[in-house]
């Protein structure tokens, strides 16, 4: 959940999902540290990183969970997207299968029922145009149909990497639900929402 902090700033949990090798970790690394490695070790677990961006008078502190893409860890994914304010579903434009998997992720996210979840669909490895298997239009139209924010990125060339995160940051305040009166929200999700009272860093 995007949690309003003191002064109207947000802390937002963001999760990256997608097939193994789609480039989730590379995107995050490019965004957070401005680095890129041709050989990025496969993520066995969920890396946790933070990055703060300022857009439109609001500062958003992203708490990023970069998850493992291997299918064997699929069952662990809910632990990470549960309670998230935003998700970036990543696929590799040179890999049709990864696009299919991305669509599965989108479906899974939509099923999990947080209507305020901001979902971005990122077609990564846009620098490998000659090996493209998934056309931009495919990604775009799927995103349009499902109300996602779509963008093609390249962690290698840094193309559109910041844009994904900034665009999410722009969408978050609008997506963030109005604070609920206390005592009403007793469902599981409500319980897992951090309250800001004692988390506030001020």
């Amino acid at each position, binding site marked *: *959940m995007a*949690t309003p*902090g*003191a*002064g*109207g*700033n947000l*802390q937002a*949990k963001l999760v990256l999902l997608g097939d193994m090798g789609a480039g989730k970790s590379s995107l995050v690394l490019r965004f*957070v540290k401005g680095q890129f490695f041709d050989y990025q070790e496969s993520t*066995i*677990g*969920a*890396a*946790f*990183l*933070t*990055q*703060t961006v*300022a857009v439109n*008078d*609001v*500062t958003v*502190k992203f*708490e990023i*969970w970069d998850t*493992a893409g291997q299918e*064997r*860890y699929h*069952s*662990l994914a809910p*632990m*990470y997207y*549960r*309670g*998230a304010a935003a998700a970036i579903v990543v696929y590799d434009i040179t890999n049709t299968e990864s696009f299919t998997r991305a669509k599965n992720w989108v479906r899974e996210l939509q099923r999990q029922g947080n209507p305020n979840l901001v979902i971005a669909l990122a077609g990564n490895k846009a620098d490998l145009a000659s090996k493209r298997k998934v056309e931009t239009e495919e990604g775009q139209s799927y995103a349009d149909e499902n109300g996602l924010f779509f963008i093609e990125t390249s962690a290698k060339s840094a193309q559109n990497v910041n844009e994904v995160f900034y665009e999410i940051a722009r969408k978050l305040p609008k997506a963030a639900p109005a604070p609920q009166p206390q005592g009403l929200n007793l469902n599981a999700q409500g319980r*897992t*929402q*951090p*309250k800001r*009272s*004692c*988390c506030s*860093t*001020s």
Partner: protein
Amino acid sequence: MRVSLRKPHIAGITVLKPIEHQGNRWPKRQARMFAATQEIFRAQQYLRKWVGKAAPQAGSNDSPSSRGALGSPKKEGTTSPTSAEAQSRWDNDQEEESPRTLLRRKVIRGELRELRSEFTDTLDLSIHVATWNVNGRRPPDGLELDELLDVENPADIYVVGFQEIVPLNANSVLIGDMGEAAARWEALIHETLVAYPADKESGGMEAQKNADEKLRGQEPGGDLPEGGPDSEAADDAQRGDDERGVENEEKKGGGAKAGAEISRGEDGRGNDAAERSSGGLPNGGSETGGTESAVGTGPEADGTSVDSTDLIETLEADWHADASAKEKLDRVEGERDLRAANGATRRYVQVASKQMVGVHVCVWVRKEIRKHVRSVQTSAVGVGLLGVLGNKGSVSVSLLLHESTLCFVCSHLTSGDAEGDESRRSGDVSEITRRTYFTRSLAEQQQNLPATIGEHDQRIWLGDLNYRIALPDEEVREAVKKQDWETLVESDQLRLEQNAKQVFVDWQEGKIDFAPTYKYCPGTDRYVGTDPIAEGEKRRTPAWCDRVLWKGDYLTQLKYGRAELRTGDHRPVKARFATKADVIVPEKLEALLAKLRAKADADEMNSRPVCSLSPQIVHLGDIRYGVPTPPQPLQIHNNGAVRAEFAFVDVGGSGPPCPPWLTVTPLKGEVAAGEVLEVSVSARVDSASVDVEAVIERENALEGILVLRVHGGGDHFVSVTGNYLPSSWGLRLTKLAAFSEPVRGLTRVDLGRVGDNDGEVKNAVTGQVSKEVAMGQTVPKEVIRLLDHLMQPEQAGGADSMATKDGDAAKGRSPENGEEAEDPEAAQAAVRESLDTGADFPPGTSGRTALAALFSFLAALPEPLLSKSILTAIEADFATAKREAVVLVEQGLVPSHYGMYELLMTSFAELLNRGAEKGLSSQALASELADVIFGRSGVKEDKRRKQRVQFVKQLLDDRTNL
């Protein structure tokens, strides 16, 4: 919200937080930095708004003259301007005083202060300073300040200081001046500043002149008072008072209405200026302007200050009585504003005015920079009579211009040319420096706004410092005649004191290239004492009493000189400075904030624990039923800079931290930076922890994922794998019975193929017959082998064991067979292994071990031998159930369990019969059996267990009695 956030939260967001209350993991400095950047984050979002905001309304109420119309709130019955009122008026043009702006300023002037150069540019500005001891006189008619203020070369800021703005008599010293004289001088300054270079022949100017005449209507003929009060000696005060008394008489005769009107108008202005000077302060240090000129200031004023409220009210009454005068004034002001709007004049705005008895200072700024002037504060220090009275002392103004702090000190120091007087003057300076204090609100303190003179970026000290020239009178006059300033400067007391580090250490003064400014015969260019015989004057050696000094990196003096105004006995001195102010460049500030944010993020990341695991997959090898695998190491490397706390967590967030068949030790702990901690992982499979058939379905692959959460450092997944060696334990009887080979060879395919006929039997056949049919098919060979072993005559020890105390049978305590007794678990495992592989039992396997294995086998059945319906019946109505035990069981048995049940009971009955003479009791056997044939539910509850045992005993007794 819980206070402890250490436990990983599903929402994930809180993971970051523990750092905050674990100071040891989060160095204090970083915590501070983090807090600061949080402030910055917040401030940052205000930035745009602030920068993008339109300039504050340049309303006409900025003009001092229009501020004379302050009457409006008073007409509604307010007595004196309240601080709230002052605040609201201040806020009109200080709109940015919002909490957001305040916060932003706090950050900029606080946390970011040292980085100021990174986000500011400097703006060139000019300051014009004038100081004049006016000898207690009001501005004479026709006096022009153009030369004094160098208006042809307009400055951005004007600082004008007066000394003896009122005659220093007992009345003014002790009771205070109502600011009338100051108001007149200020009106003249304002006129001078706004008028130039307006066409003096314009109609507008005429209206102005009319108004000015009105304003000066009661001036006593513009004549200079004869022999003005000599302010230098306190004992002169009485004389001065007498003289003023005459003046006052004249004033009364001159038209009370006009006098009242002017007083009111100017008083209003005076008040307003004072409000402005304290406007940044909600609790306004001073409520009235003119009255602050009482005596001293702050604590020193106690007991001697005079409440002038009554006077003000009187004046107000007069003011209200003459509304028409006010209307006229309004009209005049309207015209002034009109001219301003037409661009005919420059506009200056007074931002501060402060008077203490005769010392007065006022500050004017160009309208364009008005909005960048903030936190104006004044301070007055009396160092005169008794060391506190205001006949000597200072009034000072502090202000923040853009991001630079300026301080203007206007002082009138101890006079006299007696020996030691210069030391007293120097003492005055240090006293003023020590006691000048600008009251700051908490918010201002947080902005590091200066409270003392020394804390300002740029300081200018002006005034009648009264230093003389330490040379004989004749020599001075001779040098003056020759304009030999250098010689005189060498003996100037101020320079001498400065050289001796007695005063103004590190302050600068420009080159003195003008004649001494004191002491003139008023109205002439002649120094007093030039012709003592003819004039009978006191001799006063000419001196540079009036000076301007400065201290500040941004100050450069451009001009230093005097103006030839002959009103009093001093010539005014003026100084022009070039200065600079630090101005925030929004783009640079944005960039800096972005940089700081990035740094804060990086710092935060760097202060997070970083761990890696090896291996990422733990292979446990072959896993036998009920036998723990040798532990495998899992190493947690702390590669980061801080201690790491870790815990294995459940995938779902709330369950056990690892699969039930795995043992991980420890489950949580800490690893110091750079260290490695070894965690051991082992597996033990039984039917309680694993669905054995499901494992075989997966081709004997056992796999689990451990999630290791490093607090604040992300999660690591560890796969744990093992190869299950199929066992007869934990399989359903149908499956087991249908497989004729040793179970070890059982495959997924076999499991799918065999033993699914349980349902068929149930559906095709009814009653006992079907059970008879099913019997042969459903007793697994492993059970038959165990029973065979048990029933062998030489194995009667099995029966023996049952005779021992309840519960001991399975524990193999009987020492009769030494080889085997060391580890019943191991013996049992060996028996199980023989059964699963089809091998012979290990030599020497006792009946006791076989019996324990049998019970273990029964306990491992996925479905208990006696179905849940039987258990329910027992627990619902035990008496009936016990009575009809046999019937109940036969009705409730699952067909596939029937054969097994029959065989077991028959065998046990025989064992009991055989062992009867050895003391074997059905009670002991029932006790063991009851624990394993109803499944695991409720085994540990005494009452339920007792009922089961009695029920099973009933079954056994029914058999043995047959």
